[in-house]
């Protein structure tokens, strides 16, 4: 028996009835679950959510969503695919379909998603996808607190390659809870680049789960950006299932006000000769709270594993808090594993150097924050996306001044 993990929630009978589906019988993760210790869901559990319906009128993509050069756009509103807002053709090499979400095991949030996701946006990649695929997931609450469960499935066939961007944005209004799940399968020798930006409304909850499998010789390069919301968690679970798989998982967050952001990663090395690296960086201001939990598991057979992770946070004020928890579970003996963690403040010598060149204090701080986040952001290999994410961070910095 597991300890009591249950907290109250509103995702039972009544919720299911409004959708006309079978009810979810699970429970939201509670504070006694080790993985959720730093991110309690008390405030979320107090709210009675109703299902997002697709009759919310959203007739355009919010202007804040960037247009990425050379990308096709696929738009979800409250998790449902909106053909009218999407590009006509997902581009050469990518096939689009919409399927029922299979209820499978997984965390309670994944099961909750499976119970109530409208349908899955499924991308099938064969060969080299020509264009960047930009998925825009819009949360549009009605007059009541709204929950939505977007589901994305990406299957990259052996030898194929694709670059994906996900923008998660909300329309201002009532509070909402977005519970997206992405399942990514990287086939043998395939390359998937995936760049996720979460920029939710300041009262919103966003608890995202990414489930990634990388086959032999496959490459998964991901970057996750978190810029706000009341409570955001980006949980990324990666299994390297074939030899010579290579994973580069990076991310950055910039928090102000009372925002809470949690990066939880699980890197599961199962077979020999794989490499994974993680660079996560965060900037915290106001009374915000940043969390990084990174677990690296190296199975007994996974010899010659090279696994690294680093998390660094920069405090812009005295009010914020950071929780950082690296966990290395290594059962093989011939491996290279390294982790590093550090927190700090802006160096006054750096500020003086910039001041001595005529740069005012606010601009100097912005430049230094962008510089601090740069070694994570620079890991983004797709240039237009790197520039876009850097611009998003610059915009966050401007807004905070």
């Amino acid at each position, binding site marked *: 028996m597991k300890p009591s993990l249950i907290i109250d929630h509103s995702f039972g009978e009544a919720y299911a009835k409004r959708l006309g589906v079978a009810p979810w019988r699970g429970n939201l993760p509670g504070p006694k679950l080790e993985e959720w210790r730093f991110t309690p869901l008390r405030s979320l559990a107090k709210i009675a959510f109703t299902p997002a319906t697709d009759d919310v009128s959203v007739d355009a993509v919010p202007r804040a969503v960037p247009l990425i050069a050379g990308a096709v756009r696929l738009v979800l509103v409250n998790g449902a695919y909106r053909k009218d807002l999407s590009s006509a053709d997902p581009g050469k090499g990518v096939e689009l379909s919409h399927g029922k979400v299979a209820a499978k095991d997984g965390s309670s949030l994944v099961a909750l998603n499976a119970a109530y996701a409208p349908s899955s946006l499924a991308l099938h990649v064969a060969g080299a996808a020509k264009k960047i695929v930009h998925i825009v997931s819009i949360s549009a609450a009605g007059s009541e607190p709204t929950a939505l469960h977007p589901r994305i499935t990406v299957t990259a066939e052996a030898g194929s390659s694709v670059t994906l961007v996900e923008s998660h944005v909300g329309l201002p209004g009532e509070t909402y809870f977005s519970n997206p799940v992405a399942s990514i399968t990287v086939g043998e020798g395939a390359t998937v680049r995936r760049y996720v930006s979460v920029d939710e409304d300041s009262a919103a909850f966003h608890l995202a789960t990414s489930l990634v499998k990388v086959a032999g010789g496959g490459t998964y390069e991901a970057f996750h950006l978190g810029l706000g919301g009341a409570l955001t968690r980006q949980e990324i679970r990666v299994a390297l299932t074939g030899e010579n798989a290579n994973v580069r998982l990076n991310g950055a967050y910039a928090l102000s006000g009372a925002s809470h952001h949690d990066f939880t990663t699980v890197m599961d090395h199962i077979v020999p000769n794989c490499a994974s690296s993680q660079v996560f960086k965060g900037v915290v201001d106001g009374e915000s709270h940043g969390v990084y939990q990174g677990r690296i598991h190296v199975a007994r057979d996974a010899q010659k594993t090279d696994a690294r992770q680093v998390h660094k946070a920069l405090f812009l004020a005295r009010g914020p808090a950071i929780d950082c928890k690296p966990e290395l579970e290594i059962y093989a003996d011939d491996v290279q594993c390294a982790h590093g963690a550090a927190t700090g403040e802006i160096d006054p010598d750096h500020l003086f*150097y*910039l*001041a*001595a060149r*005529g*740069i005012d204090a606010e601009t*100097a701080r912005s*430049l230094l924050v962008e510089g*601090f986040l740069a070694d994570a952001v620079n890991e983004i290999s797709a240039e237009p996306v790197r520039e876009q994410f850097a611009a998003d961070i610059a915009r966050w910095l401007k807004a905070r001044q």
Partner: protein
Amino acid sequence: MALLEIKNLHASVAGKEILKGITLALEPGEVHAIMGPNGTGKSTLSNVIAGREGYEVTKGEVYLDGKDVLDMAADERARAGIFLAFQYPVEIPGVTTSAFLKTALNAKRRAAGQPEIDAMDFLKLVKAKTAVLGMPYDMIKRPLNVGFSGGEKKRAEVLQMTMLEPRVAILDETDSGLDIDALKVVSEGVNSLRSPERAFLVITHYQRLLDYIVPDHVHVLANGRIAASGGKELALELEAEGYAKYLNTAA
């Protein structure tokens, strides 16, 4: 009116008085050299003029063009035309030299009521200035000073100076860590900026630099005071005889 006027300047660091009454006037077009043993307060003087925090001015005044400098924040002083080439330039990871230069240049332009520099003009300007200083143009893509050799850092300081075209430039031991070729290049960079509207305060430990940047006045700083002033021949004398005599008098 002197371009930079320092009057009876006293300053303390961590409660200890380092500058004990410095008076200096730099007229437009002049180059003043300050020489002195280690630990005598040369960098303290340059930091106080540039406005670094942690230095307490207990007495005295500093004027730029008649404006009270000690009243201004460091960034205001820089925009007003004071430039400090650091003895130890800091490394700033993640901030490219190019982003930094552009931000600094635009800060100055904005203060002067000019529009921001056009991207192409900026690149052209950097190309021209790096070429003069014998620096690879690509170095502006690197993070500011990160992994630069001692000599590269000093060249980068001079590059910034030639781009920002200050009224008063303070060079704090810009010659240290330079080999003779680099010394010549850096000196040429400085000399190219010499003009009737500009003044220089060249702090150095060695006379060698003054063969290339020929000063109008040389001052000896010892024990927080100007112990002697003279022409460029004073530098030669110091080279031959050392500072012992000034330290003894002051003691």
